[in-house]
């Protein structure tokens, strides 16, 4: 699975993207977030307040209950501020 991070999530996690193998027991975005937070303090800090984190699966906005498969592209970022 391809993971992308933007804005301050990218800064806190320290990388812009990474390829991971989705663990068998991670079936939703919410489970992915829990799993990511276990991977280190950068992830834990970036994902500490999910009220200010948004998610996209295959480039569409998605909620924490969205199902995942290993071929998905998943992005994590703050609420958008363009325009």
């Amino acid at each position, binding site marked *: 699975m391809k993971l*992308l991070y*933007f*804005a*301050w999530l990218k800064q806190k996690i320290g990388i812009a993207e990474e390829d991971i193998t989705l663990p068998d027991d991670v079936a939703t975005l919410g489970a992915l977030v829990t799993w990511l937070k276990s991977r280190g303090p950068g992830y834990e800090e970036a994902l500490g307040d999910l009220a200010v984190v948004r998610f*996209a699966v295959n*480039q*569409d*906005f998605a909620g924490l209950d969205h199902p995942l498969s290993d071929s998905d592209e998943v*992005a994590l*970022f*703050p*609420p*958008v*501020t*363009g*325009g």
Partner: protein
Amino acid sequence: MIRIQAEDFDVGAEMAAMNGDGDVGALASFVGLVRGGKGDEKIGAMTLEHYPGMTEKKLAQIEAEARTRWPLEDCLIIHRFGRLEPGERIVMVITASSHRQAALEACAFLIDWLKTSAPFWKLEERSGGEEWVEARASDDQAAEKWAANK
């Protein structure tokens, strides 16, 4: 049509290109600029980060939605990314229609929706360092108004 680019754009030329033929009687446009601030509240440059791929997808969806809701002869969205100084253009929306109501409403709709659903993030350069701009609740409300009025 949508364009995502680092380069500046020419508003007059883009508008002129949209009034060539047929039934266009009204052109509405919106241009967003980097604010410079006033007096003691000078604002520095900003850098716009975006999510290549998703940006194109979302802007194309927003344009398609506007064309569904209003009888548009033409529609153009340009959004820049990269580092921009105060006074520089960030974004432009132009809508063309036979009559003004459709053009004006579609233009307001496009910029409201773009604000909340196009994946861009602004990093401001301030005297104390860099800071990510926070999303405003008023932007969500502006976009939700259109959802209610569907």
